[in-house]
């Protein structure tokens, strides 16, 4: 059976799996943003917390992804086989780029602008919401973009612990020695990553202030 024929006959399954993959990625990235963005704001003020938070996030990023899945499986409540474990691992993986870019974006602002904001009587909260965050938004978005692309890639490995997604095809194809089945996972995964990168890159350029 040719690759083309396989894609045509299995298109419904491929589409469903792609959506499953996308859902996995989106849930993980949204949770990662919900953690890393406020944490990134917090560590601009708490010097002690800064090193700890960035350190822990970069440790997670450094652990090989399959090993991280392996570590999580024996942990009670969050562990085990399935989607939940996968999402926890993906969140841990996505934290660092968002956290680091939020911190860098918020602290890399022209000091003259911040001095003017303070001197004109803005409260620290107003400086954060009206000056720092709007000026940091493209840098923060770049972090989210990196995190999303990484997560799409790592999520293919999540199939190994029973989380579903496009990795299912890839692992099955390797076991069956079938190029068609491998490509049914690999092609959509690659396209998803390119698409996400392109769309978020477009948004980034539109948001650019300087």
């Amino acid at each position, binding site marked *: 059976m040719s690759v083309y024929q396989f894609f045509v006959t299995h298109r419904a399954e491929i589409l469903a799996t792609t959506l499953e993959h996308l859902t996995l990625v989106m849930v993980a990235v949204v949770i990662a943003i919900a953690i890393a963005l406020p944490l990134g704001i917090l560590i601009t003020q708490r010097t002690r917390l800064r090193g700890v938070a960035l350190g822990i996030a970069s440790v997670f990023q450094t652990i090989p992804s399959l090993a991280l899945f392996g570590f999580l499986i024996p942990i009670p409540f969050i562990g085990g086989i399935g989607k939940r474990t996968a999402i926890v691992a993906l969140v841990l993986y996505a934290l660092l780029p968002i956290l680091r870019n939020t911190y860098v974006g918020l602290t890399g602002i022209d000091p*003259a*602008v911040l001095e003017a904001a*303070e*001197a004109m*009587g*803005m409260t620290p909260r107003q400086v954060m919401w009206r*000056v720092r965050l709007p*000026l940091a938004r493209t840098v923060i978005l770049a972090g989210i973009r990196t995190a999303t692309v990484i997560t799409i890639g790592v999520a293919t490995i999540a199939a190994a612990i029973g989380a579903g997604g496009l990795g299912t095809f890839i692992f099955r194809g390797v076991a069956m020695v079938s190029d068609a089945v491998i490509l049914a996972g690999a092609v959509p995964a690659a396209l998803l990553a390119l698409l996400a990168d392109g769309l978020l890159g477009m948004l980034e350029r539109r948001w650019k*202030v*300087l």
Partner: protein
Amino acid sequence: MKALSTESSNASVEFREVAYHVPGMPRDAEQDTRALVCDISLKIDQGETIVLLGRSGSGKTTLLRLINRLLVPSAGEVLVNGRATDGWDIFALRRSIGYVIQEAGLFPHFTVAENIALVPSLEKWDATRIASRVRELLKLVGLDAGNFASRYPRQLSGGQRQRVGVARALAADPHILLMDEPFGALDPVTRADLQREFAAVAKRMGKTIVFVTHDLREALLLASRIVLLQAGKIVAHDTPQNFLQLPHVEVRAFVSSLNVGTLDAPVLNVAAGDPA
């Protein structure tokens, strides 16, 4: 009025034996050079234009920043409208004082109109009042409202940005205007234009202006009094006419620099040989 002012002050801004050390730096006598400014006593009346003159690192910007409490005095007190700055609500204090810095420090994500409207919007003026105030200020600083209001700072020349910076500082009609080398980064021709226009506007406004510069020419043009700082202390203090005649060596250095051109260049050698 002046007879009353023994303890409480009628001055617009007053420094009383003020010193400022960088917090956390040692303060023992050996290390007294750590003090950025010390022994500062100075009274500034409403409507005066005081120019703080000095070389880089002489403490002039530090004095300016003590007035709106960007810095807190280590000793002594700074009074604004007769009240010590630590007795003010800090945000109310700053919103009642205009502030202009070199390169303007405009918000790059705000339009010209939004930049100018900042303090009025913090003070929750209504939209129509803000809009008419913005038009009025753009006219005052010589910019056409129709043409400039909706531009972003990056779309302006250096001189135009600085004009917007002045308009922003004046927005909520502050009694006091602090200016830190506002024209320092401009080319000489634009700078001369802005200095001349600003001198005319300043005369009309009746505001207390504290102006930091290292350019004696600028000081002579704008000042009602010149205060010369050296190593964190006031070493000379007089009207522009008298200032030029003062014998202090630092005054002579600045006066001789008038012939040399730029300051912050090594003018000491020139001063040493100056017979005046």
